[in-house]
């Protein structure tokens, strides 16, 4: 798909903006997105990709009082790669994996809008995520334990309890 701004480059940024229940899609290339304050044609009143993302990030919503937190967030930069929050909102891209940590406070609204969710529930890397896997396993077993107690399956419950204890010990040792 070509960029709807320049019509030349491949669009790499895709957004959906919903205003009063009306959905508008935007497909823009990176260099156009980079241009600060560039207006997107065909939008009533017009708004820039900048304000679009900022809107998603709840920083410069029209008519909104800027909270102290958002002011801090705006000037905040990722210590690892140096990208600032407002650069991120203009580019629509993170500079490095640490950006996720430094911009964390502003990300939930963005992820909610884009994905309808803020938490990963999928695959976990086997090696690096071994601990996470075990923690999730413990969570699942605790739920199972609750059920088996309710259903008075005490033998099974005891087994589960021992298993959970073993796993918790393993994690603590690592």
């Amino acid at each position, binding site marked *: *798909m*070509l960029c*709807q701004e320049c019509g030349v*480059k*491949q669009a*790499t*940024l*895709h957004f959906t903006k919903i205003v009063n229940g009306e*959905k508008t899609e935007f*497909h823009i290339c*990176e260099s156009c997105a980079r241009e600060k304050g560039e207006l997107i044609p065909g939008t009533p009143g017009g708004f820039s990709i900048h304000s679009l993302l900022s809107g998603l990030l709840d920083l410069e919503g029209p008519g909104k009082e800027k909270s102290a937190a958002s002011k801090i967030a705006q000037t905040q930069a990722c210590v*690892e*790669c140096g*990208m600032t929050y407002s650069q991120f909102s203009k*580019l*629509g*891209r*993170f*500079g*490095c*994996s640490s950006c*996720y940590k430094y911009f964390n406070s502003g*990300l939930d609204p*963005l*992820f909610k809008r*884009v*994905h*309808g*969710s*803020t*938490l*990963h*529930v*999928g*695959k*976990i*890397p*086997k*090696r*690096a*995520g071994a601990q*996470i896997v075990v923690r999730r396993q413990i969570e699942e077993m605790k739920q199972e334990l609750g059920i088996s107690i309710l259903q008075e399956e005490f033998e099974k419950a005891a087994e589960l309890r021992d298993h959970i204890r073993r796993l918790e010990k393993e994690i603590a040792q690592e």
Partner: protein
Amino acid sequence: MPSLRFTEQALSDFMRSGGGSHSEIVISSRVRIARNLQHIPFPLLASLKQSEEVLEQLTPVFGGEEATEYGSFQLVKLVDLEDLDKKVLVEKHLISPSLVNESKGGAVMLNEDESVSIMINEEDHLRIQCLFPGFQVQEAWERATAIDDIFEETVNYAFDDKRGYLTSCPTNVGTGLRASVMMHLPALVMSHQINRILSAVNQVGLTVRGIYGEGSEAVGNIFQISNQITLGQSEIEIIDNLQSVVMQIIEHERNARERLLADSALRITDRVMRSYGILSYAAVLELKESAQRLSDIRLGVDLGILQGPSVSIMNELNVKTQPGFLEKMFGDEMSTTERDMYRAKLLRETLGTKN
């Protein structure tokens, strides 16, 4: 410069072998997963030196001479490629346009039958792509995740307990998974049902775009349907959702085809035969027309109006009629008119009486 075998033939071996269910409607299934390495900025900000470091970490995983379960891999660095070869690789969907245009230290690892394509230093450090003919999203996902596991034995991924796999673009975070299915939907287009269906698809977290088209316009009635959400759904849920929606679209397309044949058999037969005639005898053909006529012929074969050409030949022609491939076959640097002429020649020779 050694010739690149991946750009010699239009159809990858995996596509040639055919197979995959519902291949009269689903052309191919693709899964891509995005991964990044720890402690190195994403390609957007990485220096050339850092990009080379990424390459050094990632290439040895499949770099050995010995064949893996997925074939042996060849590493191709973008700087070593002619522009035309890059163009052809894009037309075959083996690499993305942004690997060509925006990448520092970009490279791709391809296996022999080209069903696996591993891009390095694209928007993310690593993008594993698996392509299968027909409707085989599940199979594509299984292969991609297995290859992901092999990488993960050697390298450290940027992963967060809460956010999942960390990617450069917020639209890929979480699973990093983009699963897509390429579908040929001529009857839904002809019966004006396509927009209604596509907007319904948008409402269940999927996106649709035309392939090779300008804007979102589909050329040759070919549409690509993929998941939009990557965070908050597991890979299995994403694949299941896509599969069930695609199944429903297949059903709608089938019904629309049956209705076409029942209500307007003469009109549709005329349209198919005319397109066949034009592709067999025309002297000049623009891409847009050839794509539309090829779509008619594909439909004609499916409806039993025409005997042959095979699905595999149709798939091949879709790729071969693209600008890069024509230049690759008939000579570099063509004008548009020359391309249109060679496109017609190619189609005449493949479909026509070969005189």
